[in-house]
């Protein structure tokens, strides 16, 4: 299957509609309801343990059109967060000392024209800022070439996708030439100190399987990535996060098109791990959409599953105490976070 250069949204593909995605997810009648699984393990309704992370999706615009993207991001997506909505996030954070980490994601967050301003303001609040950088953006245009220095100046934790230590599988997932550009970008990040011992500049990589299979054990794969990237390209990094692909948006399209949907769901359901279910990231994270609406996670955001109606719905009404009392919204895609050793934006959740 060739990698499309346009989003499902631009193609007016039926899987660009969240309601249709939910219909597909519900079609597998042979799979037990996710909520029922949690009930069996005394985890239903699923409640927050207390939010410490605010994950802000600053827009769907991206310079890449990755095959597995749950955001359906790409160059043709124009939805981006305004500075006014960013200000609402900052206002919410001033009154929320328990939220210590701000996780910026997209699309390519750096393409939002107010990205740098937002990072600077978040830094002033003393928050730890994570940027989910797709690496190639650093080389995409001259105006992004200084991003490594900008990240360094604000001690941003850089988390970057590199699905494999070879071009074949990386380019199959992320586009032709992405591997070579990613390697160059990683070397530029290393040059300013990222990933180097004692620098205090953290560079983590994300491994997503390039296909219809589950990720490897994180520790073993991290050792292999470190060995291959060091010997092949003299690259250093801190941690590898293994993340399971969730069956939504473009990855769902891939699963359906390749005839792998049912067998992949079966793998997720068979690998359901109660310990991983107890450690899912939605229990300590709140997700903000580009338009300021609140969600339990970035995946629910893309499925337009807003936070429970009992909780504040928009960042302008942010109230951490009320949000910490909500019931988390669940659906069949949640099996992706509870399979095997678990999966979150910080990698596997159980040893």
């Amino acid at each position, binding site marked *: 299957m060739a990698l499309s250069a346009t989003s499902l949204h631009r193609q007016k593909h039926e899987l660009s509609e969240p309601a249709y995605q939910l219909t597909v997810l519900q079609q597998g009648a042979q799979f037990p309801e996710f909520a029922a699984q949690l009930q069996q393990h005394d985890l239903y309704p699923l409640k927050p343990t207390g939010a410490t992370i605010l994950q802000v999706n600053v827009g769907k615009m991206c310079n890449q059109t990755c095959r597995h993207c749950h955001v359906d991001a790409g160059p043709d997506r124009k939805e981006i967060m305004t500075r006014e909505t960013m200000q609402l996030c900052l206002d919410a954070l001033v009154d929320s000392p328990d939220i210590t980490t701000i996780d910026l994601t997209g699309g390519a967050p750096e393409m939002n024209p107010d990205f740098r301003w937002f990072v600077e303001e978040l830094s002033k609040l003393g928050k730890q800022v994570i940027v989910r950088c797709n690496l190639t953006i650093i080389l995409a245009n001259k105006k992004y070439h200084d991003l490594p220095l900008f990240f360094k100046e604000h001690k941003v934790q850089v988390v970057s996708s590199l699905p*494999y*230590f*070879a071009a*074949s*599988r990386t380019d199959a997932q992320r586009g032709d030439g992405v591997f070579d550009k990613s390697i160059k970008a990683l070397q530029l990040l290393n040059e300013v100190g990222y990933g180097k011992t004692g620098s205090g500049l953290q560079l983590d990589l994300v*491994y997503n*399987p390039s*296909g219809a*299979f*589950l*990720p*490897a*054990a994180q520790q*073993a*794969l991290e050792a*292999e990535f470190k060995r291959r990237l060091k010997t092949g390209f003299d690259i250093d990094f801190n941690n590898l996060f293994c993340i399971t692909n969730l069956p939504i948006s473009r990855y769902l399209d891939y699963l359906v098109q390749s005839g792998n949907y049912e067998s992949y769901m079966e793998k997720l359901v068979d690998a359901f791990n109660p310990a991983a279910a107890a450690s899912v990231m939605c229990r300590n994270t709140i997700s903000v959409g580009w338009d300021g609406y609140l969600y339990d996670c970035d995946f629910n955001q893309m499925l337009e599953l807003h936070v429970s109606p009992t909780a504040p719905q928009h960042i302008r009404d942010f109230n951490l105490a009320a949000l910490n009392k909500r019931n988390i919204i669940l659906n069949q895609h949640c099996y992706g976070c509870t399979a095997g050793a678990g999966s979150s934006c910080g990698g596997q959740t159980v040893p």
Partner: protein
Amino acid sequence: MEKTYYDPADLKKFGDITQLQPEMGNKFFDYYGEVFKEGALTAREKALIALAVSHAVQCPYCIDAYTSDCLQKGADENQMMEAVHVAAAIKGGAALVHGVQMMNKIKELTM
């Protein structure tokens, strides 16, 4: 009887073999599980060995299972194909080395 000897769906039923002889079956699966644990060899190395052996014994169930397992454990396509070549080399070598036996017999029977 099915029209084909092999059905991919049967792979999932492998565990059912314990139904007719639970003691031996369970001992086998306990042993199997122990063998594939991370040890002196990594779990990925064991999966690659299993993939090679799957080809040598020409077991379609095993090829299905260990192709998936190798991918899941982070093995790359080059490693996997090299493992298959190791199996092929041993299989081919095992056939060819018997050529010595044939040559011995030729010597015995001919002037």
